[in-house]
């Protein structure tokens, strides 16, 4: 029997993978994909709760999240392309001018 706990554990594992990926990877696109992973991990828990509580609200939030993720993908990828045109790299360790 697969209970809600299984879904939530899966969601937490995926979310942690995303967080760790954001923290340790250097390629901007990979980091970007990790963020998507975090968003979708949350989606899993939303859907699981919706099923568990017999409520449609969770599923509605999933649509919102997917819309935001799509918009974010468009903007984020555009920024990465613009950065690449300037610096010819997407390695975020080379982007460290945000300091004193």
């Amino acid at each position, binding site marked *: 029997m697969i209970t809600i706990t299984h879904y939530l554990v899966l969601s937490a594992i995926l979310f942690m993978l995303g967080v760790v990926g*954001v*923290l*340790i990877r250097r390629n901007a696109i990979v980091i970007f994909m990790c963020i998507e992973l975090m968003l979708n991990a949350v989606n899993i828990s939303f859907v699981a709760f919706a099923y568990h509580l017999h409520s449609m609200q969770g599923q509605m939030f999933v649509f919102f999240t997917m819309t935001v993720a799509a918009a974010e993908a468009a903007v984020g990828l555009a920024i990465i392309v613009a950065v690449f045109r300037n610096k010819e790299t997407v390695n*975020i*360790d080379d*982007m460290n*001018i945000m*300091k*004193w």
Partner: protein
Amino acid sequence: MLNLISLVLLFPLIGTAINGLIGKKLRKETVGYIACGAIGMSFFVAILVFFGLLQLPPESRVFEKQLFNWIESGSFKAAAGLQVDPLSSLMILIITGVGFLIHIYSIGYMHHDKGYHRYFCYLNLFTFSMLLLVLGNNFLLMFIGWEAVGLCSYLLIGFWFEKKSASDAAKKAFIVNRVGDFGFALGIMLIFITFDTIDFTGVFHAASQGNIAVGSFTVTIITLLLFMGATGKSAQIPLYTWLPDAMEGPTPVSALIHAATMVTAGVYMIARCNVLFMLSPFTMTVVACIGAATALFAASIGLVQNDIKRVLAYSTVSQLGYMFLACGVGAFTAGVFHLMTHAFFKALLFLGSGSVIHALSGEQDMRKMGGLKKHIPITYRTFLVGTVAIAGIPPFAGFFSKDEILLEAFVRGNFIYWAVGALAALFTAFYMFRLLIMTFHGKSRVDHHAMEHLHESPKNMTVPLKILAVLALLGGFLGIPGASAINGFLSPVFGEHGHVETHGAEACGSHAACLPYLMMVISTGIAIAGIYLAYLMYIKSPELPKKLAERFSLIYKLLLNKYYIDEIYDALFVNPIKKISLLLWKRVDAQLIDGTVNGVAGFVRGFGSVLRLSQTGYVRNYAFYIVAGCIFIIVFVVFGK
């Protein structure tokens, strides 16, 4: 006509504004006309006001004009109002009249100066301030005028500020006056605390009602503080040192400010507050003693000075001492009378010396003059009148006023006051004739360079001299003993204590009534003795002064160096204060205060420079902080409680 009084003040103020704001663009003639015209019109209005006052019956000759409410705070009220009474109307006549002549003289004297408009702007401002001083109907307004004349005095002494000695003298005058003004300001505050008003009428009314006991502690302190102000402004011991140095200013300024008007402000103030001063016998004694001491002290310094203007400066200090002596024995009328005659003959002498200096292209040392009688005859003749007047030969102005002071000092004071005054009169006659002889008589010691330019002054300088000479000749008749016009005129201000009613009035019947005539003979004799001494030493046997100077070299040196008072003051006050100030500046200000402020800033900067190391610029670090923060919040929410 009395309502016109505000115009007296307005004209000089307009003159100041025009010359101060656009004088630079105007032609020199225009500047001179505006300045003289302003004072001339002011003088005209002053005459109108004077006659307006004469039309009133003597006992109601007080007119107050309220201009506007100036300050109102709690029970403290100060209105801007003008007061016309015999004393102030006499003062405005002297100020505008003598001031007008000196303005005209200045046109000629300052003709070559590049600061022409600046000069007339200051001179008009001075006249305005002085009029405000004498016309104000409360102590605060008087104090404003008092400070403003001090400011103008500072500006005009330092008129040639490129010269270090001039700017130093200006600063000295200003700072020494601060000491006196401090006392004056305290006195005004104490008056307010005691009487709950600062209006002249209110204060004097309350004081004359007998609410204050004669000789009470408060009134003694008040009058002593007021007198402290007077010693500063009127150059009395111990604050007289600024006046001789003030001769660095242009000569007409010396005539107007440092002889005729401003320095007499202290005498005016004491005469104005006569009700208060009469309540304190102790202060009166102090005033009389200081006055007598100053008269003798300054006259003795004047005996040996060689700078023509300095002799006149010490003479002014000495004559002011006479006025204070008169006030101190309660003879306010005599003091004010001498103030008036002194304004005439001392302005004449200063302007005459200015004419001499002008003729000699700026030479002030009497040892480089001599024999000028032929070259500048008008100056000589008018100067002679002034000299005779100050020496006290009848019927010149100085005789009547000085004789009256000596008489009053004898009658009301004691023999010592009289003896000191008489000795000072002897000195006065001597040093004035010494000055006259060294300048105009004998062989010429003028160097040939100045000799080439030697010329009589232009008309606009000699005409004021002539008018002042007439005044110095005739001014004394206002106060002839027995039929004194000035006594009668001023009696509403001073009440019955202003002058001795009886002297000279009765026929020379009793012994006491003979005294005035005896006094006259004695003081004339003293004057003639002084003149003869000068004649003996500087015409008959010119080698005598040198011999005497060698014989009594110690006294001579003491006098020549002005009793070393300046040096003593430097050692006692100036240098210690300088040292303390230096300490406060270098240690307290620069190190302690600046150190604290800079230290706080330095600490913040240092702390910040450590903190900013956390700003690495790597996105990963920032992301890590966010995650760490989130974890912290979750842990706190879940396990915190």
